[in-house]
Structure formats: C-alpha cells, structure tokens
C-alpha cells in the first residue's frame, strides 16, 4: 500500500532521515517506535506530503505521492499536537474539512458521538484543552473512512477513558483491513493492537518485524519486554 524507497531528509546539519526504505501493507497495524528525535514524525509528515524529502520516493498504491495529492483522500491523520485556526469553532473546522474532502463514502461519526463533540461544536479552538483538541483530531482522522490511518502519539494527552475508547476504535478499523500506522512511546499500550513493529534510531530503521516473530524470537510475552530484550542484546553485541 505504502512503499518508501531510500528516503533521506536533512534539516540543516541534522540528518533526520537516512536512507529509509519501508513497505507497509493493507491490514497491518504498524507501530513506529524509537527515541525522541529519531525521525518518526518526519517520516509520517513525509508520507503526508507536509515534509518534502531531499531524496527518495514514496509510493502510495504504486503511485508516487508528489505527483497527485488525491491519495490523501485515503489517509486519516491525527497529529501529535493538533494545531487548528484559533478563531474557528470546532463545528467550523469540521465543516471546512468536510467541504474540502468532498467525501463520497458515508461519514463515520462514531468518535464524534462517543466523545460528544457535537455538544462542543460552537467552542473556539483556542479555548480547548489539549485533550479535547486531541479528541477533535481523532474525530477528523476517522471521519472519512480512510484506508490508511496515521496516528502520531494518539493517546498522549487523552484521559484513560478516552484513550481506551480510541483504542477500541483503532482495533475496529484494523479489523476492517485498514493500514494503521501508530507512533507511541508507551509500548504497553500497543501490545494488543500491533501486528508489526518498526524501530527507528538516528534517522534509520533498525528493524521492521512481525510482532509475533519478535515475541517468539525473544521468548518474551509482552512487546515492551521483547523490545527491551532486543535493545539490551544489541548493546551487548
């Protein structure tokens, strides 16, 4: 579904992505993990076209993304920190995005209902708490029934109940056969979701593996333990 070939990006002196190649397929739920500043967000933004890479290509359904923007119709994006025009109300933002997407498929308003966004619809974006902003972001990301969901630290800032609701929603979408990309620091959260794991460090992909395989290879039962095991053994080498 998404194919990344030899992607490199440099911000000034800092090499943020270094020759990254990845292949992500339908039905996968991929966790993108790694220390701060390892290039996760840059990679995601590259897929979304918000960051223009220095070299390399990204193919979406075999088509390079820099030619045609319509592939973004099939992506729902939930940013790490949602930034919205401060003067707009929630209702206006949602209305505007609906307007822009002109989606033909039926809208998925499930999160809107579960988070009770409608009752807040006249609130201005600048008055919202971080958590509510994240709820709005999540609502928008899922609204258009996209084939791909890109969620950047989705649960950060959400209260435990909201986080749990979001997780349930993610599982539901995964079961529909969508590609889901999640970045998170909290590995424990991802345990029951993730099918694949990508570990990034210093702009490079360290490994990209099936979670079952990781667990069996390391003999650990949880993902976090497995990772820790790998990292430790890595240091020993």
């Amino acid at each position, binding site marked *: 579904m998404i194919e990344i070939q030899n992607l490199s990006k440099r911000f000034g002196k800092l090499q943020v992505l270094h020759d990254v190649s990845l292949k992500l397929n339908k039905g996968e739920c991929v966790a993108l993990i790694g220390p701060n500043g390892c290039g996760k967000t840059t990679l995601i933004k590259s897929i*979304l*076209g918000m*960051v*223009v890479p220095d070299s390399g290509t990204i193919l979406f359904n075999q088509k390079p993304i820099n030619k045609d923007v319509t592939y973004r119709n099939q992506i729902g*994006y939930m940013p790490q920190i949602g930034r919205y025009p*401060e003067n707009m109300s929630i209702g206006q933002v949602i209305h505007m*995005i609906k307007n822009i997407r002109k989606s033909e498929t039926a809208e998925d308003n499930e999160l809107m209902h579960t988070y009770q966004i409608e009752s807040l619809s006249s609130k201005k974006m600048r008055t919202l708490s971080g958590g509510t902003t994240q709820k709005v972001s999540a609502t928008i990301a899922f609204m258009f029934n996209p084939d791909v969901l890109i969620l950047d630290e989705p649960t950060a800032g959400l209260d435990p109940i909201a986080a749990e609701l979001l997780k349930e929603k993610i599982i539901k979408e995964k079961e529909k056969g969508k590609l889901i990309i999640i970045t998170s620091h909290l590995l424990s959260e991802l345990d029951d979701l993730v099918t694949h794991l990508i570990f990034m460090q210093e702009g490079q992909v360290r490994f990209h593996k099936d979670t079952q395989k990781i667990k069996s290879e390391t003999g650990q039962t949880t993902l976090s333990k497995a990772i820790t095991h790998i990292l430790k053994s890595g240091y020993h080498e």
Partner: protein
Amino acid sequence: MNRIIKFVMLDIIKNKIVLSYAILLAVLAWSVFSLEDNSAKGLLTLLNIMLLTVPLVSIIFSTIYIYNSSEFIELLVSQPIKRSKIWISLYIGLCLALITAFFIGIGLPLLLYAPLHIGIVFNITGFLVTIIFIAIAFLSAVLTRDKAKGIGMSIMLWLFFTMLFDGLVLFMLFQLADYPIEQAMVLITMLSPVDIARILMLLQLDISALLGYTGAIFKAFYGSGNGIIVSFLILLVWALVPFLISLKKFNKKDL
C-alpha cells in the same frame, strides 16, 4: 468561488483590523476632499497617504496574517489539496479583502471627487500597490519560520521601498550629476514599485512641468497611453515575481 478564498475573505472581514483600515482610509480621503478647496492639492495629499499607508498596512497585515494562519495552512496541507492551491487561495483572499478595503476607503471618494481618468488611474495603481506589498509579505513570511524575523523583514522591505530607495536615488543623482542620466533614471525608478506608482500618479496630475527636463522625459514615457499600460504591467510583474518565488518556496517548505 474557491472555498479557501471564501474562507480567508470571511475570516479577514471578521478581523477588525481590515475594517479599521478601510475606515481610516475613508476618514483620510473624505477629510482631504472636504478640507482642500483645490482638488489637485487634495489629490497630492491623498497620493502621499496612499503611498505610505497602503504599502505599510498591506505588508504588515499580510505577514502577520500568514504567520497566524500557519495552523490553518498545516491543517490544509495534510488534506488532499495541492499546496499551490492553498497558497494562491490565501493570496487571492488577502488581495480581495485589502483591495475592497482600499476601494471603500479611497477608491470610491476618488471616483466621486476627482476627474474620471485620474480616479481610474489612482484606483488601479492603488490596487496594484496593495497586491505588490501582499506578495512581498508572502515572500518574507515564507523565507523565515520565525514570526518576529518575518515581520521585521517586512518592515525593512517597506522602509526600503518607501524611503531608503529614494535616498539611494538622491545619492546617485548627486554622484552622477555630470552625466546625462535622465533616461537611465526611468529604468532605475522601475526598481521600486512605490516610485513607479508615485511618478505615474504625479504625471496624471500634470505636475510634470515642475519636473523640468527630467519631467519631460518621464512624461514622454509614463504619461503616454502606452507608458501607463507599460507601468501597470511592470507593477503587475512586481506583484507576480515575489509571489511566484514565494509559491515555489512554499511548495518545498517543510511544515
């Protein structure tokens, strides 16, 4: 109308700054026309106001507006819209809003009080100056990520075109006083949109007689029908070039 343009326009109209800009211009224009018994004098005063405030407000307001729209731009970029469409829509929206403010403030009283041909030339020039300085604002906003730096750069550019450039011209005129540089001056004034606008409008007021020999050369160029069209085209280039550069930069910009 394009949805983004519509949104930008509505957003700006809600913004009190543009409304007060229109009111400020209107108050100035009406008071000038009602105070000065001589309409040519009034036009000169208005010319000064126009060449000072219109570039200043256009460039500063636009720069700030672009920085304040960064979230909006970011939101749109992650959506299935071409970047150039976002940037162009933003530009057109700002242009339409500020041109409307200019027209209500100065354009309309000009058409009512000044001779028709002067009113038309002043209006077109005012529109062009507006879109030029919005374009320059787009350029300085896209060049720096830092809001304070971007606004600073805009102010510097405004200062350069409204004042410093003329200082350089003065310096040059004295340095090259012994050479016949009148013809070359026509070309040099084209390096500043404010100067083109000022001279173009002065010549409409038949002030060229005061300019002596140089005036005659300028009259021959800027005063003729073709000259007016050529100067309008040059002003248009002054709007297009900074904007197109900014568009190119924006298309490659990381958000």
